[in-house]
């Protein structure tokens, strides 16, 4: 089974656009690739579509949830995105947590595994949110310890996602440098959430260009996009990472800029709230794919023109 998957996946373009898969869309995702849907599931889609799931949603022994995930895994590249490991503050909850992650990674062999550069557990309590870390040397050391622990448990490198910032904490370094230092120390990569970056810039005045300039293109292994909400109490000041609406124009623009800067990467459309129909999500996902295609074509043409210039010289 594994061999045929690997073979199939090598033929796929992993710079494709994917969707984070919700249970209500299992059946449609599976039937999309059936022969009845060949008009929709064309060769391009076959080579680019992938799905991501929240790892912790599959912390069950058996039942339909895991059975569905297996079917999806048999048809598409699959990525695991963790939300509960509390990398920035490993706690007593970490060890049993990582054991379950490792079992799932071993069983489903996802092509990417990611987590967050945040914390969420302390004193035996899990706060079910992505809590911010102060960007200090101490916090960096803790984060790196959490990443190493995670990577050791699953036997492979992970990607860590930049958080959404709502306010500024004390900091010794900028976030781009903070993440890159974690990359250097642990061998992990970066999942660049463009929506989070957009919101951080709006909420805290983070300098997007300086941020992107600090990141090494080769360290960026995946990109997320999502929709946001305007805070009811502070509409002028705060944008919330809600994943509950379509991607905003400003985020699409930033995505194009990021892809042009770093080159094509797997792009994932996240939607966790007010989840629309599968078709609606697919059409938004296709917009991301079109963005990837444009950037790829542009880079190819640039590369050809560079070659021509060398030839002419």
């Amino acid at each position, binding site marked *: 089974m594994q061999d045929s998957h690997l073979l199939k996946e090598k033929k796929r373009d992993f710079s494709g656009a994917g969707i984070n898969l919700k249970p209500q869309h299992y059946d449609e995702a599976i039937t999309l690739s059936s022969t009845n849907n060949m008009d929709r599931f064309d060769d391009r889609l076959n080579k680019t579509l992938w799905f991501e799931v929240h790892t912790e949603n599959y912390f069950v022994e*058996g039942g339909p949830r895991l059975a569905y995930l297996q079917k999806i895994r048999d048809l598409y590249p699959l990525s695991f995105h963790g939300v509960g490991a509390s990398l920035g503050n490993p706690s007593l*909850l970490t060890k049993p947590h990582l054991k379950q992650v490792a079992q799932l990674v071993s069983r489903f062999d996802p092509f990417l595994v990611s987590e967050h550069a945040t914390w969420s557990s*302390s004193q035996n*309590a899990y706060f079910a949110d992505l809590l911010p870390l*102060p960007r200090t040397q*101490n916090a960096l050391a803790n984060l790196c310890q959490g990443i190493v622990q995670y990577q050791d448990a699953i036997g492979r490198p992970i990607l860590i996602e930049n958080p959404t910032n709502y306010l500024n*904490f004390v900091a*010794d370094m900028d976030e781009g440098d903070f993440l890159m230092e974690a990359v250097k120390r642990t061998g992990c990569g970066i999942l660049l959430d463009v929506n989070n970056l957009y919101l951080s810039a709006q909420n805290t005045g983070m300098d997007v260009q300086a941020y992107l300039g600090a990141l090494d293109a080769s360290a960026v292994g995946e990109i997320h996009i999502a929709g946001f909400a305007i805070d009811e109490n502070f509409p002028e000041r705060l944008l919330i990472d809600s994943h509950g609406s379509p991607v905003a124009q400003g985020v699409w623009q930033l995505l194009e800029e990021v892809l042009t800067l770093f080159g094509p990467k797997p792009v994932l459309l996240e939607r966790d709230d007010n989840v629309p129909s599968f078709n609606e999500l697919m059409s938004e996902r296709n917009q991301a794919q079109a963005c990837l295609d444009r950037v790829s074509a542009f880079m190819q043409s640039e590369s050809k023109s560079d070659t021509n210039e060398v030839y002419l010289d």
Partner: protein
Amino acid sequence: MRCTLIDQEDYIQAFTHFMRSGECGALSGFLADDENTDFLKIYRNGFYKACLSALKANFISLTYLLDETEFNQIATQYINRYPPVQATLVAYGMAQGLDPDIRNNTLCFPSFLGQLNDTAPERDTSFVPFLNDLALLDQAWFSTLNKLNLNQVSLAQVQLMLEQGQDLSVIPFKLVDSVSLVSIEFDVFTHWQALRFRGEKSDKTPEQGIRYILFWQCNGEVQAKSLSSIESHFYQEFIKTSSLSDALESAAQRDDEFDVSALFADLLNASLLMLED
């Protein structure tokens, strides 16, 4: 940008205190100078929203019985008292899957509702005394659905054993792993089914009295049935002794009219038996 040597542990403690209490005074020292501490509420709101949403998904019958404000009020008390002790909300509020050490330091949502029962003022007519029973049934349904259910014995397999002349009384049959036997104090099984699967409330007040409900998985779907007195005795014995023949014998001793063959056929037809490894 200021260079700082803040203690990470102090920061985590201050943030933890804020998440548990809403008091952010200790966190202000970790914020940049002119930050609005009201913005911190976003994190705490996110935590409660996620936990409430998990409890609603896991105890769905209660969400049909209670109005949203009532449910949120009770659930928020639970979240305050017993925040998640696993870094996932998949089974938040449920007893399943917890390490014994952790289990001792927390309480599942059905038990919490049971405690509310015990402490509810006598004249509080709005209080529903069988909330914990409904929650127990939701919990059992969820737990059964997500269990690994392997090596079920089919009728055809047993027929083959008989054709081969095997003595069934010595075959080590056991109940499938997905089985969950739930004891409830009110007769709410039908009520629960109407709530959970049709969103319908019942006008009838359920009768008080211990009932046993059996849950198991068959062909990937959850099955459940209310047990008769002798059936509940049989299943309790079977779970306690892990021996089919002992449980059958015990049930036959208790009731002269207990039909062993019929029950065995029921077990097979319902895919309730597996073979011990």
